[in-house]
């Protein structure tokens, strides 16, 4: 199969930036990525822009600022996996010999608080059923009922990721927290306390993909949606089947990505996964095959997923430290992992990292798994 390489990456920090538009942030990330790749005007044949809230022609607005239009520019919405979806389309087009260089970027500027989504119908909002954190909480409760996960584990995920985030200048929260403080933050939806939930925020990220295999390679970029019937994965139906054997979209995406790349979870040196809430990270350990079902708490307890452990997870600080600008978050993970594989991630560097996985999952449901190698 045609090799696809990462020729350049760029990032606008994640946080809150009053007076700075999503377009402004996109311009900064895109210019950085293009400069790194040594690609100028006319140097890429297509652009895909991930965004969930940007509105019509978001990608055009960014590239219009740079006079870099004329090629196909396509906005991609796949909830939290929007950036991963954009990457999948770009990589597929290169592999199909349609293009040899493609710009992929993601931008978002989200209001504070519980995300309002056109996903829910007005009556569902009126009935109090558009409470996104409540769905996270229902899933967390199930995880606690069916495995050894306790509230202390949820707090420990936050402590770990916030400690990692101290070393990330592009993160929104850079102060360490202890478990007592996490558990002292107010309960949003039992068992989830405020600090166990990531903040929707603002930011942008960009990646230039190029045919060829210099440097970091994109070994797989897979997107999967949910299978029918599951009630608590991110598709958020009002009802589903009483069937616990339906695989989650993240499992589907991971399985396909490992197969495509000829790799397995045992090959991973570093992982960035969707920690929209602390329980979501633990669930991802299982769905991505980092541990057997029911063993997420043990993996965390052993320190395997802490920087310095066997398979460090969210060394960037994760979304719990960075916040989550929907369209940009998946590509933000890729930017982090490219730095890890280039061995230039500074104090949060995973020694000798050669294989990396980025995972996002959200509304739709859509799950994306990206494998990077060097």
């Amino acid at each position, binding site marked *: 199969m045609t090799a696809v390489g990462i020729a350049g990456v760029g990032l606008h920090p994640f946080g809150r930036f009053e007076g700075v538009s999503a377009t402004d942030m996109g311009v900064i990330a895109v210019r950085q990525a293009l400069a790194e790749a040594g690609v100028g005007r006319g140097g890429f044949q297509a652009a895909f822009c991930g965004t969930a809230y940007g509105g019509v022609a978001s990608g055009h607005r960014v590239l219009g600022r740079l006079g870099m239009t004329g090629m196909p520019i396509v906005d991609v919405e796949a909830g939290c996996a929007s950036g991963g979806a954009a990457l999948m389309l770009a990589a597929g087009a290169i592999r199909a010999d349609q293009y040899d260089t493609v710009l992929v970027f993601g931008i978002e500027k989200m209001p504070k608080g519980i995300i309002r989504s056109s996903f829910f119908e007005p009556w569902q909002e*009126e009935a109090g059923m558009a409470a996104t954190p409540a769905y996270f909480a229902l899933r967390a*409760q199930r995880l606690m009922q069916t495995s050894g996960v306790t509230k202390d584990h949820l707090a420990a995920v936050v402590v770990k990721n916030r400690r990692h985030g101290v070393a990330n200048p592009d993160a929104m929260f850079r102060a360490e927290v202890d478990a007592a403080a996490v558990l002292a933050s107010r309960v949003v939806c039992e068992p989830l306390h405020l600090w166990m939930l990531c903040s929707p925020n603002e930011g942008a990220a960009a990646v230039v993909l190029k045919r060829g295999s210099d440097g970091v390679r994109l070994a797989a970029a897979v997107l999967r949606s949910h299978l029918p*019937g599951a*009630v608590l994965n991110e598709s958020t139906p009002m009802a589903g089947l*009483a069937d616990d054997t339906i695989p989650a979209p993240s499992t589907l995406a991971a399985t396909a990505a490992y197969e495509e790349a000829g790799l397995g979870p045992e090959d991973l040196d570093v992982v960035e996964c969707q920690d929209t809430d602390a329980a979501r990270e633990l669930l991802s350990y299982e769905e991505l095959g980092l541990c057997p079902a029911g063993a997420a708490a043990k993996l965390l307890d052993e320190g395997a997923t802490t920087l310095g452990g066997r398979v460090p997870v969210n060394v960037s600080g994760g979304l719990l430290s960075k916040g989550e600008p929907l369209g940009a978050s998946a590509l933000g993970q890729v930017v982090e992992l490219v730095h890890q594989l280039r061995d230039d991630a500074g104090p949060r560097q995973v020694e000798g990292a050669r294989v990396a996985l980025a995972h996002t999952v959200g509304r739709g449901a859509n799950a994306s798994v990206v494998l990077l190698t060097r």
Partner: protein
Amino acid sequence: MPVTVAVHEGLLADGDPPHLLGSRCRTCGGHHFPRHQTCAYCASGDVEPVELSSTGSLWTWTAVTAAPPGYRGEVPYGFGVVELPEGIRVVTRLTEPDPSRLRAGQSMHLVTAPLHVDDEGRQIVTYAFAPETPETPETPETPETPSTPGTDR
């Protein structure tokens, strides 16, 4: 008494007890809620309307402590998933807003619950599930009646 109006038509059949309005696929046998025209499991168009069981067991639960977007009622309120004998799990409000008073697998029954009074003075209601017997009744001397907390009829 204000006029009582369901938050959305086609969710709930008024009655004693009330029922959720669902559908059943004649091809794969799967049940749906809300009512579908096509089967969300197997794509069949051969779907019949049914009334779903008004009792089930609690599968998972939480409470919402801050008003989510578009919500005008009171907080906190219970929220969870109830498994019905038809083999489906329904996402629902719960009348019990204290998660510590609920347990996995406990019997639940369907009620209508008040949401808010709208601009025209009408009481807007929705479906909710209530515990079959409260875990720790606050007023044990009160005779047991079907009027559990959150029930308005």
